[in-house]
């Protein structure tokens, strides 16, 4: 019994040391979605997206050096009963031509240019009439809300595999597939709860709009016109 207690105590100490001493990077600016306002425009649900905190030191440095940063807008529409529809990602590249001294925002089909970094920043942080989903792919009589998150990375888009989180990396099977198991990384668990510093976070939390009924959105659109 004494040996078991000693083993448990030693293991606990080692775990705490291992979890606490994990090296982390300095805190960085975190993107935030301030507001998403939905509307109807030309048969699409569109959104005015106001965000902030996109331009950390790393992102700003990358763009100003002449290499791009990529902003990914992850979003989906959800219903009150928890169903999700219309998952999508919109990506924009933020670029700077060091030779022509021109900043630009590139979407899949268009490019918009800006004379200064500040104007480009203002434009990407205040997107207007972003086409999110075709109106006829949703149920006109139901309520929906949009949930959106931004990831901004220097040089490339979001790393899809990393978004799922480390828990899903720990399902393990034996080499001959005779057993199946789940392991919990105790170091990561302790780091998650006890570590004072967090790693760089380049993803915003998920913004959730209010539920809106499509028929009322369409009615508002007709009134404006």
């Amino acid at each position: 019994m004494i040996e078991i207690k000693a083993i448990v105590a030693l293991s606990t100490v080692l775990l705490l040391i291992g979890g606490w001493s994990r090296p982390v990077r300095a805190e960085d600016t975190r993107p935030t979605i301030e507001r998403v306002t939905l509307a109807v425009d030309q048969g699409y649900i569109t959104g005015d997206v106001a965000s902030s905190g996109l331009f950390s030191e790393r992102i700003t440095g990358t763009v100003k050096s002449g290499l791009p940063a990529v902003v990914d807008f992850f979003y989906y529409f959800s219903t009150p009963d928890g169903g999700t529809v219309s998952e999508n990602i919109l990506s924009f590249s933020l670029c700077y031509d060091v030779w022509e001294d021109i900043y630009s925002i590139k979407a899949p089909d268009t490019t918009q240019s800006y004379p200064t970094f500040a104007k480009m920043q203002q434009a990407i942080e205040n997107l207007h009439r972003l086409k999110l989903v075709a109106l006829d792919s949703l149920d006109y009589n139901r309520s929906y809300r949009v949930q959106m998150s931004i990831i901004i990375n220097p040089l490339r888009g979001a790393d899809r595999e990393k978004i799922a989180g480390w828990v899903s990396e720990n399902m393990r099977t034996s080499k001959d597939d005779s057993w199946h198991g789940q392991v919990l990384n105790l170091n990561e668990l302790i780091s998650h709860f006890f570590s004072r510093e967090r790693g760089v976070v380049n993803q915003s939390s998920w913004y959730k709009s209010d539920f809106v009924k499509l028929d009322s959105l369409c009615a508002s659109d007709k009134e404006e016109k």
Partner: protein
Amino acid sequence: MYSVAAMHSPAAGAAPDNNSFAASSATPADEEMTHRGLELEYIVVVGNSHIADSAIIGTLGLDSHDTVNVAILEEARHRLFRDYPLLSVIEFSTRPGSRRGFVILDISVVERHQVVFETGYGLHDTYGWFLTLLGLRVEPAVAYGTEYRLGLRLGFHISGLDGEFERRAKPGGFGLGGNFHVYSQKQIFFGGEAAPTSWDAAGTGQYTREFRQKIERSGVELHVLYMSRDSTRFSFGFHAEEVRPESSYVESEGDQEYGFDEFPALLQAGIRKTTITGLAFRVVRDTRDRSDYPRSGSFALLQAQSNSTFFGGDEIFAKAECDFRKHISLGNWYVLSSRLTGGIVSKRTPYYDKFFLGGAYSVRGFRELSLSPPSGSDGFIMASDEFRFPLITSMADEPPRLTGLLFIDAGIGWERGNALEWSDIEAAAGYGIRLRLPWIGTLGFDVGVPFMESRTGDKFYINGCVGFSF
């Protein structure tokens, strides 16, 4: 304020892509940069405490005054990920250099813990549930690409210590691996009112009594790995194992003990301390898009072993198994999955190394191991079809929180010397659910209804599961 609404104006009639996550790839703006050329001034590495700056920079394949663009930097980053599994996070960013057109590359890394403690649980398809009380994983900084793992396990029917090491093989390259185990296992078999000796090959009796025999096994294995360029893994190696079956067994309910003479006759020959040595070969090709909830791709496993007295062992037998799985996506986490598996052993194979059908990863709807006689099956073929569908969805690009499934399993085992008949096929159909929980993983159960009367008399059976059955 500049409006960027004009930026997101697809061609008339086109609609945003709602069904797939398709981010933009290299853009014309990047190509322009490539044409003009940005030059690398120097590289800065931060976040590393075990791996030297020079080692990281040396792997990149980049020097001062090299032309850089997104593609070149991505390739360098991929090279770093591949050569340094110790790095869990590698992020590149740049900043303006001392002159226009020059860039400074900043590399921010996070090193994994060299020593990782783990805990967990699992399900062995022969020996049931177990806990991993404490696991230890070590990836020493001085031996990149090599991982050592040690696990202390405690379960209802299996307990012990196991460990393995692997020096990973890169595509087109070789690696090395090995493992050891020291287990105490409970071999499960079923019998009728007159104890297991009443078992008959036709299995027409009602075998409701469960018996357990303790077997201690300890062994080592060493193998060479090769990974082909299309990620097919080959391994070839040597193993040695000592097996000590107990010469008595107990009934699971009541703990009544039975002696050697009351074992089924086919088992008695294998109840002795023995050493097994031989060679093993394994091929695995896994093209599934993900292992936790495969939606597409396939999995193929072929393994064979040949044991003889050449290396000092006591047994001469051979064993071969194959396992093929295919997953077809029907869109939005609806998946059709199929599996075909089979195996065969030679004469004189000890009963504890034969095949036992029935259970969560075998033919569901039947108790674990209940579809084979106490002496095991000399060969088997098994097929499963499963339709998986989301019940409660999760966030974008994550598997559903709750998944439902409908399945049909069928299998047949045979014993050498007994005639094989179609009526020996055991089959069941049913439904199940899988719940994906944070930290804990995916747990679930399957309810199976046998098409014919089961040997143990169960009208239906519920099998618990870790992850999906295949």
